[in-house]
């Protein structure tokens, strides 16, 4: 069964149909790419999936559960985590704490337990530290754990954002232009990381990307958006050789 099932999803802002009749079905463990020219509505799809916008029409199902119209917090609890096109880290907090915050809904204790430092506080914090370091290790960030997130170099900030998203233990991970602003070396390193995340965490990943090398390198399936409409959908190699797609990217 598909882990994410989107049917006839639409949203319009005033008279503008930002996303129109969008359909998507992602199987568990799949690496799925969402591409399209600037302004095609890719990030709007992400915002719809994560509850930032409420769709005017359509249904979103995660693992069989209807999550249409729920808010961001509930949707994250149901199992969708994301990263952002413009990096959004907790800049004034240490790298480690960024990941620990990701575990917010999985390891909890009350405010009073925290203030009074009851035994549960120590226990949970120890587990949190251990698990966060494990995730940081995957992204080769463990040595920077004590640094402020804002002081990390750009490429590592991108990785930390993925690490934080994974800490929420999602079923589906959305990556919004993970390779934006990276040099070719960093991009190929990132490709390895994303592959590793998929295998290591048994993750389903939907990503937006402009870097065609990355897209053709790791995505098994693609959906191409143009002006809010689906232009092509299917196996990566077939979609990329579709004349309509080439036309949208290169112009006729």
């Amino acid at each position, binding site marked *: 069964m598909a882990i994410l099932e989107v049917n006839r999803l639409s949203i319009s802002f005033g008279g503008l149909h930002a996303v129109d009749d969008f359909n998507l079905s992602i199987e568990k463990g799949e690496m799925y790419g969402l591409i399209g020219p600037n302004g095609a509505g890719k990030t709007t799809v992400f915002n719809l999936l*994560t509850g*930032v916008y409420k769709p005017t029409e359509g249904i979103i199902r995660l693992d069989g559960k209807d999550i249409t119209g729920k*808010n*961001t*917090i509930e949707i*994250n*609890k149901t199992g969708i*985590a*994301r990263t*952002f096109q413009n990096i*959004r*880290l*907790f*800049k*004034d*907090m*240490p790298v*480690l*704490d960024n990941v*620990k*915050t*990701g575990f*917010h*809904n999985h*390891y*909890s*204790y*009350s*405010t009073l*337990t*925290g*203030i*009074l*430092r009851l035994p549960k*506080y120590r226990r*949970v914090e120890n587990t*949190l*530290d*251990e698990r966060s*370091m494990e995730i940081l*290790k995957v992204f080769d960030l*463990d*040595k920077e*754990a*004590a640094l402020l997130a804002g002081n990390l170099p750009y490429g590592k900030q991108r990785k930390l954002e993925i690490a*934080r*998203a994974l*800490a*929420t233990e999602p079923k589906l991970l959305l990556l919004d232009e993970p390779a934006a602003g990276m040099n070719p070396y960093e991009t190929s390193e990132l490709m390895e990381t994303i592959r590793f995340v998929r295998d290591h965490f048994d993750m389903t990943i939907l990503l937006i990307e402009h870097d065609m090398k990355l897209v053709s390198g790791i995505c098994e399936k693609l959906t191409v958006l143009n002006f809010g409409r689906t232009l092509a959908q299917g196996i990566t190699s077939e979609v990329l050789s579709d004349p309509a797609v080439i036309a949208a990217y290169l112009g006729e």
Partner: protein
Amino acid sequence: MGEKQNNIDIIKSMRRKTLRKSMLNYGIVIAAYAVMQIMIATGNISSLLKGLLVPLCVYVIAALSLNLVVGISGELSLGHAGFMCIGAYTSAFFSNAVGNTLPDLPRFILAILIGAAFAGVFGILIGIPVLRLKGDYLAIVTLAFGEIIKNLLNVLYAGIDSHGLHFSTTSAMDLHMEPDGRQIIKGALGISGTPKNSTFTIGVVLIIVTLIIVQNLINSRNGRAIMATRDNRIAAESIGIPVTRFKLLAFAISASLAGVAGVLYAHNLATLNTKKFDYNTSILILVFVVLGGIGNLTGSIIAAVVLTALPEMLRFLNNYRMLIYAIVLIVIMLFNWAPASLDLRSRLREKLFSKHKSEKREEGEQDGNS
């Protein structure tokens, strides 16, 4: 194996760093307390300074509580004097109403709890609608709140008799009390005859308690959630943190701590009225927080002490007093935030730090040789 050890080392050193930071604050407060006690014992203290000790504690607590809102949760409150006012009035009313039926200490402890509770409840009432909004609405609403509370209490009359409590907003006559009744809140005249339970020692204990609450909160799961909402609201929501709830948590705790400061203030004076709890006081507390460094608790403590004591210490300068005070404010501001000063400080720190480090390395080498 080595990797795991490495991880443990990193976590341990992070924990040591936070512990050191917290301990520094407790240390400063306790050291200051010890110095003052010695000065009092040896009679080396002016009556002026002695009279300042409790107000100093009041302002330190108020500054710490406001820093929780401004520095940790990233909202702006311009009405913290209002919460102090609520703490002061409710606790003074309680202490007067109960009178001598309870011994001093338990009554004062109850008064503190009551002041904190009422201020906290008002914090929640204001926070629920306002903290849902994005933007600096809290500043506007708390500003209005501070003024409203002040004006309401200015026309409030309250008393107690054998039938219970009586309230009126028009005049003392409207309380319709039995002959055995006692009027406690007398409109604009405020409350008089509150037992003077506040001492320097209790004030310092309350500062320590405030520090424990604020510091332990910051270093806990919910504290991280609060700071996450401050750093990036959208990202915090995307990882499942209910932003409004945690902003509210910080604001409510801050309000009740401000209430505690109010309780301490009220039980230090023979007469309590609303004059002291105006806009200027709210801004003054904000000045402590900003000059001490937003989010920096040590800074808040030092700024509150220095800036409260300074105008009093400068009294001998007469007319030049406020001029000097203003200059000091500007100098502190420059020291804290000017790029050149930040640069200098980081270079100094690096120098000290690397020196420290190389010494350690030498020690290690010597150990290895022997």
